[in-house]
C-alpha cells in the first residue's frame, strides 16, 4: 500500500492533520494512566505515613 516510509508519513499531503489527530489521541491515552499512577502513589505514601504515625503514637503511649 505504501511505497516508502516517507510516503506513509506524508499521508498524501494531509500529514499535519492526520498526525495531529492521532498524535493528540496517543498523547492523551498514554498520559492518563501515568497521571493516575502518580495520584495512586501519593495516596499510598500518605497512608503509609499515617500508619507509621499511629504506631508511633501507640508505642509512645504504652
Amino acid at each position: 500500500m505504501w511505497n516508502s516510509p516517507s510516503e506513509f508519513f506524508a499521508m498524501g499531503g494531509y500529514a499535519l492533520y492526520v498526525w495531529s489527530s492521532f498524535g493528540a489521541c496517543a498523547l492523551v491515552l498514554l498520559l492518563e494512566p501515568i497521571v493516575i499512577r502518580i495520584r495512586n502513589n501519593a495516596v499510598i505514601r500518605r497512608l503509609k505515613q499515617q500508619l507509621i504515625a499511629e504506631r508511633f503514637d501507640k508505642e509512645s503511649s504504652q
Partner: protein
Amino acid sequence: MSKVNNISTADSRWINWFKWSSPSTFYPVAGKLIPIFWALTAIFGIAGLWVSFFVAPVDAVQGQGYRIIFVHVPASWMSMLIYLVMAGWAGLGLIFNTRLSAMMAQALAPIGAWMAFLSLWTGAFWGKPMWGTWWVWDARLTSELILLFLYLGFIALQASIDNPRRADKAGAILALVGVVNVPIIYFSVKWWNTLHQGASVSLTKAPAMAQTMLWGMLLMTLCFWMYSIAVSLMRVRTLILERETHTDWVRQLNEVNH
C-alpha cells in the same frame, strides 16, 4: 473482615448484588481486571491501527486524510457512551445510596471529558482540509461542545463540595439532567441538515462505507472502549483508597503495610 454486609443469608440473591457494591470486595477484583483490559486494549489497538493504515484503501474523495475517521468516530462514540454509563452509575448511587456507584461515576468523568475533547480536536483537524473550516456552529458540534462542558461541570461540582456524600448526590443530579444532551448529539444529524455528515453506520441497514474502513473503525472503537474501562478501574481504585482511609481493610492492604 468480609462481614461488611450483615444481611441475612436467607435471601442470597440480594447479597450477590450488594456484595459487589462494597468497596472492600471490589478493590481486589478491579485490580485483577485491569491487566485483562490493558491486554484487550493492546490487541484491539494494534489490530485497529494495522487496518487503519495498512489495509483500508485510499478514499476516492478525501485521499489519505479520511483516516482521521479511525480516531474521530471512536472518540465521539466513547464520549457519548461514557456519559450514559456515568449517568447510569450516578443514578444507581442516588437510588441505592451506594458509595461505590458514585465513585465509579466520578472515575469515569475525566476520561469521558478527554474523549469529548479528542472528538472535537480530531473533528477540527478533519474539517479544516476537507470542509475548509476548523469549526462551525452546527447542531452536532455544538451539542458535543455542550457535552464537554457538562463533563467539566460535573467534575467541577464534585471538586468544590467538601462533603463526599453530598458531592456524589449533587453530581448525580447534574449528570442525570445532562443525559438529555446525548440523544440530541446522536439524532442532530438527522434532525438538522447542516455541515456534519449524516449517519453512515446504523444497526439495521448496510453501512454506506467500505468493509475495511468499517472494520478499522470498529476495532479502534473497541480499543478505546477497553482503554476507558481499564483507566476507569485504575482511577476508581485510587478513589477507593482516598475515600476509605479510615477503614481497617485499607490499613491491612499489602501496598500500605509491606
